[in-house]
């Protein structure tokens, strides 16, 4: 169990994320097929397979920020679609913002806030637009609150995972205003956003990694 984000934890997080994406690939694709183009699962799978390989090439003492940055640039280079640049920029920006050799909860929350800002700058989506931002924002907010309240990284990660999951579920009744689902207009209502769903997986992966 880690109290700060170090190399080990960052590696465990990203590997858990890759495993979750692999496991949930079909579900993500099905969600995307309903209101998008049916490739979100295979997109992220391709991306995180490459991330796992890229991380293996990094030195064992690489700081966590370097791992996140590497993951981000790899996603940008391998995924394509909307989620590639968005997740890629999020991780790259977060990674660059993290201190070395380790990041405490406050630094992690700040880094991920920077990552979220990058996503919003690139994609122009606000909370309620039915995108990954709807899961990302509450998760980062939960980390920030937990840091302020003095929670442990492990407790904070669990809260963030819960918040992301709730945010993803909350996209169901929304009408999409960004991404492909927005083309459907009112017909996008009643479906959970695939990107918000994968964001929830990524925060659950962090919680799982801190819990080990």
């Amino acid at each position, binding site marked *: 169990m880690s109290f700060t984000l170090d190399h080990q934890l960052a590696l465990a997080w990203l590997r858990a994320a890759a495993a979750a994406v692999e496991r949930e690939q079909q579900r993500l*694709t*099905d969600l995307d*097929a309903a*209101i*998008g*183009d*049916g*490739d979100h*699962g*295979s*997109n992220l799978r*391709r991306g995180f397979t490459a991330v796992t390989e890229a991380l293996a090439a990094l030195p064992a003492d690489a700081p966590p920020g370097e791992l996140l940055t590497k993951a981000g640039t790899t996603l*940008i*280079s*391998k*995924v*394509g*679609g*909307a*989620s*590639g*640049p*968005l997740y890629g920029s999020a991780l790259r920006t977060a990674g660059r913002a993290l201190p070395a050799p380790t990041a405490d909860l406050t630094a992690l929350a700040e880094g991920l806030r920077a990552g979220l800002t990058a996503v919003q700058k*690139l*994609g122009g989506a606000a909370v309620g637009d039915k995108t990954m931002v709807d899961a990302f924002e509450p998760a980062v907010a939960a980390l920030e609150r937990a840091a302020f309240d003095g929670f442990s990284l492990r407790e904070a990660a669990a809260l963030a995972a819960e918040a992301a999951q709730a945010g993803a579920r909350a996209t169901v009744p929304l009408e999409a*205003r*960004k*991404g*492909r689902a*927005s*083309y*459907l*207009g009112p*017909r996008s209502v009643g479906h959970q956003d695939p990107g918000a769903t994968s964001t929830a997986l990524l925060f659950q992966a962090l919680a799982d990694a801190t819990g080990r």
Partner: protein
Amino acid sequence: MKKLINTPETVLDDTLTGFAAAHPELTVDREARVIHRADAPRAGKVALVSGGGSGHEPLHAGFVGPGMLDAACPGEIFTSPVPDQMLAAVKAVHGGAGVVFVVKNYTGDVLNFELAAELAADEGIEVRTVLVDDDVAVKDSTWTAGRRGTGATVVVEKVAGALAERGADAAAVASVGQRANAASRSFAVALTAATVPAAGRPGFELPADEIEVGVGIHGEPGRRRERLRPAHELVAEVVATVLAEHTLSAGDEVIALVNGLGATPLHELYLVYGEVAAQLAEHGITIARNLVGNYVTSLDMAGFSLTLTKADAELLELWDAPARTPALRIG
């Protein structure tokens, strides 16, 4: 799912292998996933580069060649390509006169081409972008992702390609592309859904007598579902929808594209074209040039899209300029 493929994972690579074998007159860099003219880079010529998700063939690789694109970057099926591809394309075809990207307006394409333009700028190569957004099924608004890019892409690549071939500068090439896009509106109707190989089943289920109206080219459902009606009535609705978002009036000339979505027999496209021509004539609008066939497809989707580009002397002249590409030969 019934497809002539090996595995869903290798569709793009295997398709590129076949495309390379079929078109030795082009250079296919399978590693970088870039198709470009064999004579690139051409010193002093503006390089026109496009790309997007695969599954829309012949777009874009089929439009690489003299008079149209210098390079194309195919992404995975329905997935925008990655910035590394565009950067490799830029490096392969940049002839010192700048680069113009033709980008269909989808979040993924826009973001990836944007990142690529930044990477190119880092290497000192200036890139301009023509954003194609002709699909009137999507309301244009700053609060949304905006109109999608569909059939007008062919028109934009044709006229911008012709101007680039003549040695115009990057600003002029981008500007005529933007003008062609602004003069274009499209609308599509699907009779069946497309099946993404990795998904393994159709994007939506459509009863035997219903169609999706206002579909895009990524297998997504459209704006609404309707009963299939005789071609005459269906075309009337499509023409009316396009005209409502257009600035055409009696006496105007257009370039008209009746485009198959991938699984539509050619005779049906001709039949639709006949209805389009007759109905536009009733509005006093003349079709000055046309294309009837599969140009911007959506895998195995049956249906068609109509694109009308308001024509003027310059656009027609550029349209008629020679093009020598796998999928379009003019002049």
